[in-house]
């Protein structure tokens, strides 16, 4: 670590150090400027924006059908979750929320829960590396690889498949998908047992995490923390339960909470969340036996099936219109939130009636979660900053957008 800690300033008994922006433990491109007295952090500040790519501006200049491709790039560990939140917002503005076919809803829930597990796998693997537990990384990336293979099989790409569309999903699940999913459902509990054996009672990990980065429920609300970090302070706020979307109210699952509010509590909450996600996936798996439509029955919104284009003039016209100028969305503004692996991910989408979104404002959970480092870091050890950042699980594509 001493290699990247450049002394920026020295005065009196304190020293100002720069942690990052290129440091593996910062999980992206984050610069933390810490003022330390000995090893105790007196003050911490952060520089973000190194990964800013103007996604919100790009989205304003794309068709409604195209903008889902750029919003997927925000949280690159949960691209399908971002896409889901965006399409839900657009569907709400279009007034077609109730007309989305059941099978499409099931696939959306399946994809968002698979993404949650894959995202937590990255958090657990890289968080383990931060603390010196290198082998965890290989166990978790084994699960993630299986999940990315499933996403690739259905959407065509591992990371940004643009599989969820306004009105449904793009193409049904391919043959052999359910067999692969079954294999994952069978394999997963064993893998989780291994991970728990490796980590949960590991004395080094407990020493590093317990009572580090502790946050009270009041502070969590004031600092706008959501997701596993809020639930680790004892608040059972989960948008899948509080404001259900895509049929989450149908499924049985618990919302794991802890009351300690420290890094170890967040670790346990996320581990339990992975089990709960798999519980939902097993229930969705039963529904996927039944075939059904996967796109809304509305030629103004859904592209006609490819094979009809050569046979029907109407299909050809509809296809041409949707591809060349998208559809128009009635004027209005809507705030649509979903439970991303990092907390409340929301889009505030404004339409002025045109074929492009007027404004797509993201509520980035990572940014607000990361901001709380300003509260957590002072008073702790400098080495604990690494643990704190890891426990906040920020994704910089989303922090910087």
């Amino acid at each position: 670590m001493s290699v990247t800690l450049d002394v920026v300033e020295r005065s009196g008994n304190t020293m100002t150090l720069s942690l990052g922006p290129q440091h593996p433990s910062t999980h992206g491109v984050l610069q933390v400027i810490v003022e330390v007295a000995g090893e105790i952090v007196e003050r911490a500040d952060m520089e973000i924006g190194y990964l800013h790519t103007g996604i919100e501006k790009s989205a304003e200049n794309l068709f409604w059908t195209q903008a889902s491709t750029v919003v997927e790039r925000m949280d690159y560990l949960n691209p399908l979750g971002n896409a889901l939140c965006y399409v839900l917002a657009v569907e709400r503005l279009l007034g077609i929320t109730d007309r989305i076919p059941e099978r499409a809803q099931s696939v959306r829930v399946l994809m968002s829960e698979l993404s949650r597990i894959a995202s937590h796998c990255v958090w657990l693997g890289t968080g383990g590396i931060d603390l010196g537990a290198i082998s965890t990384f290989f166990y978790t990336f084994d699960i993630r690889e299986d999940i990315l293979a499933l996403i690739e099989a259905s959407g065509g790409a591992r990371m940004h498949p643009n599989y969820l569309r306004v009105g449904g999903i793009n193409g049904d699940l391919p043959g052999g998908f359910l067999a692969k999913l079954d294999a994952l459902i069978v394999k997963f509990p064993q893998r989780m047992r291994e991970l728990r054996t490796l980590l949960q009672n590991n004395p080094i990990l407990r020493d590093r995490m317990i009572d580090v980065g502790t946050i009270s429920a009041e502070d969590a609300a004031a600092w706008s923390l959501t997701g596993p970090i809020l639930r680790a302070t004892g608040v059972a706020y989960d948008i899948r339960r509080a404001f259900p979307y895509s049929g989450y109210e149908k499924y049985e699952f618990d919302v794991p909470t802890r009351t300690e509010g420290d890094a170890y509590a967040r670790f346990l909450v996320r581990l339990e969340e992975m089990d709960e996600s798999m519980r939902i996936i097993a229930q969705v798996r039963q529904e996927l036996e039944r075939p059904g439509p996967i796109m809304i029955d509305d030629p103004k919104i859904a592209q006609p099936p490819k094979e009809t284009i050569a046979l029907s003039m109407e299909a050809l016209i509809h296809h041409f219109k949707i591809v060349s100028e998208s559809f128009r969305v009635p004027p209005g503004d809507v705030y649509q939130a979903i439970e991303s692996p990092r907390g409340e991910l929301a889009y505030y989408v404004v339409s002025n009636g045109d074929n492009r979104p007027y404004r797509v404002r993201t509520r980035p959970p990572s940014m607000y979660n990361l901001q709380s480092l300003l509260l957590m870091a002072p008073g702790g050890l400098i080495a604990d900053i690494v643990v704190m950042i890891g426990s906040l699980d920020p994704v910089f594509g989303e922090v910087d957008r």
Partner: protein
Amino acid sequence: MPSSQNPSIAGLALDPTGVRPDLGDAEVLRVGPSEIHATLTALRAGGCTMLLDIGGVDYLGREPRYDVVYHLLALPAAAADVKTVGRPRRVRVLVGVPDAEPVLPSAIDLWPSANWAEREIFDFFGIRFTGHPNLKRIQMPEDWSGHPLRKDYPLRGPAKEATPRPAFALKSNVPAGAPPAGKVAAALQRQIARARGQEPPKPAGDEA
């Protein structure tokens, strides 16, 4: 272009907010810039414990030009399980901000999470927040000109000369136009000069 696809759309709306309150995603309030702080204080006292987000929208051509949008959530005090949390109240407060005087009072005294959110609004829209302790750009570089999410800011501009920045320097420590220092930056400048077919600047050691 009027739509032939959806007959409910007559044309483009200059102010789409409040057109369709039936969406039911939140309680919507609209207040003026002078009342915003009192409104937020009252909402905070009335149980809106969380300021989820502050967003901005530029309605170019409308007066007032900007909307700043506060998304609030009222989490109950006792929230140990999903049943007691229930369906918490969501409130959306919209404030019109005129272009002539784009200033709002900061909400940082009510919710510390307003810190980065307000900096982002300042960065992207140029709206200033009085009482903010550290109001500077957050996503764009410190020496950037213009506010990218304004509607009159172009999506693409003329390609600018690439200004090499010193590696690992604080963004805020580099004054605008300062020549980059250090071996890495010097090597980078030589590379750039060679790529442009110019005489590469001599390494500092050669002159002696």
